[in-house]
């Protein structure tokens, strides 16, 4: 008798659980959320997305799944998000990178970085480090420039064409009076591999991409394109310290959803990502990665992004790099 009652109770309990689950299904998020990273695995954007998805279970009721959609200069991944259903289950991770702030000044894209996305928040800003292979004889930027001036041109591996690293190195070439040929690839990890292998004269990327290799002696950081030294690579001087006015907003890592995503979903996401940005474990992971946590909410980020966008526009115009 008792066992039958037990079974009945169990069935009732299961039904109840089922019913609540069904009810909960009405509210967002009812299934895993995809974070589309438009670059290859192992680059700084990818690593940041994975760090977030690692601590996400404490803040989101559903997992955040990182999906790499690499290649094509970061464009295909963005096109996928623009085309996705605006239901909050497909998000772009990395909005604010060169493809959003830099490339639009140079050529037309199959999307508008501001009009086709719902901006959610900013998570981090990555400075840009110029580095040479570990086998290179050059110990600082001044020495390197002196050597580069004797060459017809120097090559630099960069993540993708038109991305912030690409533009920064071209800016540097202009400022230092050397001819720089940038070699774009599939993303930061690809660029770093070419640099470590010594296939280019210089290269670099964001601190999280170059730091492990600098520590291992496989490359040497010469300069950072920031207003002041980046705390994650504090012993690398800025370009300004050598007298070159190469300052950029860096590469910005924000989250965006397809245009038309409901306001309550966007607000929910912004709130949850803010929680993540305040999580002590997340801060610890980010410190190990060499990435600063720099959260901004939707309005604040939008205003900041417009300024960064215009700043890149001016640099590109000054260099005569528009090809539109």
């Amino acid at each position: 008798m008792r066992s039958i009652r037990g079974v009945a109770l169990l069935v009732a309990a299961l039904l109840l659980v089922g019913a609540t689950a069904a009810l909960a299904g009405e509210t967002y998020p009812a299934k895993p959320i995809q974070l589309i990273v438009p670059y290859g695995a192992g680059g700084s954007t990818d690593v940041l997305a994975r760090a977030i998805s690692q601590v996400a279970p404490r803040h989101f009721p559903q997992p955040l799944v990182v999906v790499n959609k690499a290649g094509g200069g970061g464009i295909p991944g963005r096109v996928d998000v623009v085309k996705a259903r605006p239901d909050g289950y497909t998000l772009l991770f990395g909005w604010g990178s060169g493809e959003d702030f830099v490339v639009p000044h140079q050529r037309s894209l199959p999307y508008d970085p501001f009009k086709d996305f719902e901006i959610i928040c900013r998570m981090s800003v990555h400075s840009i480090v110029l580095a040479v292979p570990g086998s290179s004889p050059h110990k600082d930027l001044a020495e390197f420039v002196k050597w580069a001036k004797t060459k017809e041109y120097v090559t630099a591996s960069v993540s993708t064409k038109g991305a912030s690293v690409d533009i920064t190195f071209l800016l540097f070439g202009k400022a230092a009076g050397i001819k720089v040929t940038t070699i774009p690839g599939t993303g930061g990890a690809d660029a770093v591999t070419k640099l470590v292998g010594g296939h280019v004269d210089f290269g670099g990327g964001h601190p999280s991409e170059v730091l492990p290799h600098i520590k291992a002696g496989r490359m040497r950081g010469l300069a950072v394109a920031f207003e002041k030294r980046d705390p994650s690579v504090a012993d690398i001087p800025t370009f300004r310290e050598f007298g070159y006015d190469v300052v950029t907003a860096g590469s910005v890592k924000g989250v965006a959803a397809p245009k038309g995503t409901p306001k309550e979903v966007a607000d929910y996401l912004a709130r949850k990502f803010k929680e993540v940005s305040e999580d002590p474990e997340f801060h610890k992971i980010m410190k190990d990665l060499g990435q600063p946590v720099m959260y901004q909410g939707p309005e604040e980020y939008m205003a900041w992004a417009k300024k960064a966008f215009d700043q890149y526009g001016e640099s590109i115009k000054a260099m005569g790099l528009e090809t539109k």
Partner: protein
Amino acid sequence: MVDIGGVLQGFAIALSPVNLLYGFIGALLGTAVGVLPGLGPAATIALLLPVSYKIGSPVTAIIMMAGVYYGAMYGGSTTSILLNIPGEAASVVTCIDGYQMAKKGRAGPALGISAIGSFIAGTMGVLGLTLVAPPLAEFALKFGPPEYFSLTVVGLFLATYLSGRSVLKGLIMGLLGLLFASVGLDPISGAVRFDFGNPNLQSNIDFVTIAMGLFGVGEILINLEESGTLSLVTTKITHIFPSLADLARSWWAMIRGSVVGFAVGILPGGGAVIASLVSYAMEKRFSRHPEEFGQGAIEGVAGPEAANNSAATSSFIPLLTLGIPGNASTAMIFAALLIQGITPGPFLLKERADVFWGVVASMYIGNVMLLVLNLPLVGLWAQLLRVPYAFLAPLVGVLTLVGVYSVNNSVFDIWVMLFFGVFGYIARKLDFEPGPLLLAFVLGPIMERSLRQALLMSSGSFAIFVTHPISAALLGVGVLFVAGNVLRRRASQG
């Protein structure tokens, strides 16, 4: 020199219950598809791709897929010996002497020696992988854009050259593969190509879609035509364990097969099929009784079966250290790894030692599993052949449809897959092998990217491909190989 810590870590990973289970499933599935004619390892891995994303851990997923690949090498011999139908391409030569042995009532020893040969070769292959891969990964850093371009050119050329009977047809399929690979956004600047105004084509054609179409759907269509019943060698299979005399005769054939297979497997475009052909030719030349070849010589079974297994293992070396898949099956595993967020290449060993050593260790274990699985179960595998294709075909068909749809939740992808299914069917009817197309599809973006990067480095000069020593050496090997083959063909014709 051997990273003992890494190997031990690998065993710890491979011996975890989940990985053991998936390794076993992979090996079992592999053996089964090896036995079943008309469903090769490439098609099976294609079918498993969507499942692999859901498994979660990338190590587990690749352990399973690797199991399918080398498992198929074990199983492929069964139908060759019993039916004179190769279970998959790498067992074609096994038909020659294996079937003759079976007709003479020696099916047991033939099946036994191929399982033992496979085990010895598999184990030697993994041992070689353990020793060779780490230094090679270090060497791989010397590969920049010009080296990668030459490597992909040579690899693709060898693959198309060696894949089928007609070089021209292989080349045509390879070129078509490159063409399909260029649909969508270009790999350097992101410009749109060949989209015909259709936004679905702006993001490049998905690998899973094209692989499932060519291999999954294409094979179903081809097999539906051959609905005739199969005639099994019905004599009772006895003496699975070969006699001492058989073992003595096959011993060196197995060792030679393992070594040759290993070497061929490392080459881009190499792989199990070529390895088995090379080994057979070599055994015939080395044998003291060459007249027995074609009449049921046990070395003619032992050598090629060993070769295809060690080649299957060693083809993981370029995949894991250079990020260059050498054949259709490893191309599928390459794609699966990328989707799991792991980039195979020089840094894999440094950054994801768990993946690298986990997979290597799982191969040691997998080989033991397969030996245990195969020796006693040969009779059972033969029973599997009695499943009517009428049941198998719809099942595979549904799996491909669901699988492709589940990748991007896109109905458009289903149409693309069906297009490639019909395309693959027509191509096969006309004797065009789909393998080179798929391989070119995977290598195409790497090739184009490295070509353009190399030309940026050299400021437009093609001399960069010959002034860089590794690149020049690779191209030289390719030219020598092709020249050698052309001369030999001439000689055999004239």
